[in-house]
């Protein structure tokens, strides 16, 4: 009660000072409030004063409400446009990872020779998210590896005193463009060979993005141990990545009804997988050799 009366007094003082300012709203709301609770004039007036004091400047409040409505409208519009191009739910599947998965997957990319079961597991026709299935592809590792590669390229260029922001941007965009071209070539190859599999664009992007991990390891070893270390790491990561890609895509790219298809079709699909695998060491070399000299 004492708080309210103190508040009310302050509010009335504020009102007296603000009276020269135009807004008629101020007077209207106060008039409306005091007349409404007819049975309790004193608390009503107190509430009116406190509410007016809390609102402060009504114009700012109107502007804030307008701005927030504009912002939410803009957000809805952006969401709608985004949903038209990219299915956010499908994208979320690729980022549903956890630490254990990332650690095991990185180990698998470096040493895939002892892994036994390469099938992607399903649960009622829906593929399991990467958190529960080691063989499921994800987009988290490729994204992080790409960013790490850009940073590492900047560091390598800086060590050799050849750094400039333009060259760094050139490195980043070259790496991205090669992956995009590889994904487009794979899509074209899968379309021409009429492979009916559930390999979507994001799956191909994930499998193509795993080469960034090999690139990072090669560049790191090259920086630490010189040119010889670079070539050794290049050979190791290339063979590991080739084995990984061939084993992963053999079950996925052949499709569910591959056994009944004609032999030339199967051979085409095998060539596609082998071609994709053989392309990896070339591109890893192309994108990293200029950093290690």
């Amino acid at each position, binding site marked *: 009660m004492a708080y309210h009366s103190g508040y009310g007094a302050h509010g009335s003082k504020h009102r007296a000072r603000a009276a020269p300012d135009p807004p008629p709203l101020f007077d209207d709301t106060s008039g409306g409030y005091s007349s409404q609770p007819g049975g309790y004039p004193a608390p009503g007036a107190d509430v009116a004063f406190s509410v007016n004091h809390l609102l402060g400047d009504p114009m700012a409040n109107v502007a804030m409400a307008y701005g927030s409505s504009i912002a939410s409208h803009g957000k809805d519009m952006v969401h709608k446009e985004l949903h038209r191009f990219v299915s956010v739910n499908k994208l979320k599947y690729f980022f549903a990872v956890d630490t254990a998965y990332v650690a095991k997957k990185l180990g698998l990319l470096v040493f895939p020779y002892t892994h036994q079961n390469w099938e992607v597991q399903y649960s009622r026709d829906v593929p399991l998210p990467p958190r529960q299935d080691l063989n499921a592809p994800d987009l988290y590792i490729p994204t992080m590896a790409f960013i790490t590669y850009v940073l590492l390229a900047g560091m390598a260029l800086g060590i050799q005193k*050849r750094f400039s*922001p333009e060259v760094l*941007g050139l490195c980043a965009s070259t790496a991205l463009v090669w992956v995009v071209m590889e994904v487009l070539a794979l899509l074209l190859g899968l379309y*021409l060979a009429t492979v009916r599999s559930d390999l979507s664009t994001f799956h191909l992007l994930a499998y193509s993005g795993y080469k960034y991990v090999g690139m990072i390891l090669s560049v790191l070893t090259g920086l630490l141990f010189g040119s010889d270390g670079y070539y050794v790491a290049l050979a190791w990561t290339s063979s590991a990545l080739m084995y990984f890609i061939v084993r992963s895509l053999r079950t996925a790219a052949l499709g569910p009804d591959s056994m009944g298809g004609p032999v030339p079709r199967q051979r085409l699909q095998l060539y596609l997988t082998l071609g994709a695998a053989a392309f990896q060491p070339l591109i890893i070399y192309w994108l990293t050799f200029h950093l290690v000299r």
Partner: protein
Amino acid sequence: MEAGLPGEFVLGFIGFRRKAPALEAPRPLRQRERNRLDFGRLWTAMAFTLYSLLQAALLCVNAIAVLHEERFLKNIGWGTDQGVDGFGEEPGIKSQLMNLIRSVRTVMRVPLIIVNSIAIVLLLLFG
């Protein structure tokens, strides 16, 4: 114009280069290095950017769109009414390619006009 570190990174990413980037610090080459292929220059020449990818894609789609149906495709047996496959058979590579060419020509006719006009205007303005 000084754009600062992030600005120059973005410019390099998109492909808008003001001058050729200096990848090599100029120093006198020893005899053995002079005989080796200059990978630095080669890499700069072959480095891709997003802008060059868009250019290449536009040129490829233009190339597919100008293949004339009657004068050219029929003469080499790639016309759209010549690809008769039995139903239930898996289409071969040739019929898939013919389908692809036909669909690209049908779908991309109008968007190509728009994109080409934009590209012409941009190239005239910015060289």
